[in-house]
């Protein structure tokens, strides 16, 4: 990613590659301390973010990447105008941040190449945060509280050990660039399909065998990378099917025959159960299912170019797509799913 524009003259102070392990500002004039908006401390030997940093009262941009930072001092909180903090390639983890870090008005945070094993809770209060990178750390999960970062537009979490995606991620209203490549993700929650703001989704090098069919409704999506996933290649039908319970059969009958009922007619738990009915996605089938369904993987042409295995549920093994595949072919045709070419411009499959 490119650095925000470098300002001329007195507003930029570049103290990179000077073998510094402390920040002695005695030789820096008061005016310079006041005027400096961008400070570079890249490639030095800092173990702690120096407290003297707070003297740069108007600092907007700070880059302290490629040091040995294990701890960020409390004095950073006094940088009330700081918008961008870059601290790549250091030794920071979730215990390195001052307690009230979440009160800062940061917009861009780049902590890639550090040692975070958990998402630092202090990040979750940064209401103004637009861009967050924690690439190349040791994260195992994404907290559900991620939805608190309501201003987030860019989230880079590539190169971690993340195994699943919380559905709450879909609640971020402005997220346009989501990078989850090089992780251990096995499935994508269908709720991600609600993210109308998403323009680019990077999922390459994970453990995906299929995608939820809802992903077809991501009309704004321009980029989708899926290479390096063990995507199912041939038509697969999951033949393990637990027969429906009596409760489910009764529920299906009520729903598919539109039998009228009022809240007074049934106990509350049955009313709630009936509300859970899912419609069978086969357009020729009027059936519904509750818990008992067949997991079925269909192949869909994305903009007529590639075939992707998309998963959906059918009410029973007998319920199949109207155009049944001949066993020789490796795909079913999907009549309701033709996505116009201009909607998905590039699917980097392989």
């Amino acid at each position: 990613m490119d650095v925000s524009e470098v300002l001329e003259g007195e507003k930029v102070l570049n103290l990179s590659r000077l073998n510094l392990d402390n920040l002695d500002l005695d030789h820096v004039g008061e005016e310079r301390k006041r005027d400096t908006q961008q400070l570079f401390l890249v490639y030095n030997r800092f173990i702690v973010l120096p407290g003297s940093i707070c003297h740069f009262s108007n600092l907007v941009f700070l880059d302290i990447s490629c040091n040995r930072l294990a701890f960020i001092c409390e004095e950073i909180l006094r940088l009330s105008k700081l918008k961008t903090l870059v601290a790549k390639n250091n030794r920071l983890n979730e215990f390195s941040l001052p307690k009230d870090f979440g009160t800062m008005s940061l917009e861009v945070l780049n902590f890639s190449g550090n040692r975070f094993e958990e998402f630092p809770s202090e990040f979750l209060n940064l209401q103004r945060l637009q861009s967050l990178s924690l690439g190349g750390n040791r994260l195992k999960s994404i907290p559900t509280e991620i939805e608190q970062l309501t201003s987030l537009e860019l989230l880079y979490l590539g190169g971690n050990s993340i195994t699943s995606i919380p559905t709450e991620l879909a609640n971020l209203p402005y997220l346009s660039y989501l990078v989850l490549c090089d992780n251990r993700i096995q499935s994508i929650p269908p709720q991600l399909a609600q993210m109308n703001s998403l323009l680019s989704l990077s999922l390459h090098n994970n453990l995906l065998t299929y995608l939820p069919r809802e992903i077809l409704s991501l009309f704004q999506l321009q980029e989708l990378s899926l290479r390096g996933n063990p995507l199912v290649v041939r038509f697969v039908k999951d033949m393990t099917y637990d027969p429906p319970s009596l409760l489910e059969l009764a529920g299906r009958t009520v729903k598919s025959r539109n039998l009228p009922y009022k809240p007074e007619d049934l106990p509350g738990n049955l009313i709630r159960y009936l509300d859970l009915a899912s419609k069978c996605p086969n357009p020729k089938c009027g059936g519904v299912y509750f818990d008992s369904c067949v997991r079925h993987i269909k192949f869909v042409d994305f903009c007529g170019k590639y075939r992707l295995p998309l998963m959906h549920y059918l009410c029973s093994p007998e319920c199949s797509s109207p155009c049944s595949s001949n066993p020789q072919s490796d795909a079913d045709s999907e009549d309701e799913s033709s996505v116009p070419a201009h909607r998905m411009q590039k699917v980097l499959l392989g």
Partner: protein
Amino acid sequence: MEQTEVMKPETLNDLIKVLHQIFSSDTVNVEEVQNLMESYESKPEEWMEYAQFDKFRYTRNLVDEGNGKFNLMILCWGEGHGSSIHDHTDSHCFMKLLQGQLKETLFEWPDHKINGGMTKKSERVLQENQCAYIHDSIGLHRVENVSHTEPAVSLHLYSPQFDQCNTFDQRTGHRNTVKMTFWSKYGERTPFTYYCGKHIVKVALCVQ
């Protein structure tokens, strides 16, 4: 084939001058061009104006049109950005790292008699200032910035120049022809939109 005696190009402009000289003849000595490009030591201040990055994907930024004999361009790869597997429309292709590292994975041309995925030949990570060469007779490749912390910048020379190529699905060998565009030309941003029937189609298929 004749090998011209050349001094090591000190600046990017020197390199471009020598390339013009070399390509004024009709034959290309691949080794000579590769050595020449490798010998230029990258200085960011000389190419910074062409290094325009995009958030979502890598960009192609035209530097010089080589008197019609070649195209010289700078590609900018954000963290995690990569290309599809692609061919080079029978042209010579040189790729030199100006900053960061790029992983190049070579593939055999797909063989439709063999069912299944495309065959990977080899992979390597190119270091700063190294220059790689590829041609359709060697095979196909995918280029990626696999770093999650560092962007990468590469200098590419294509001769003759071409504006379309094929991309390949690794799982099936299925190919697709794509048109290539420039993010910027001579340092100026050049968004490219055209009308296709009733729809405005933004052609942003930046394939190498």
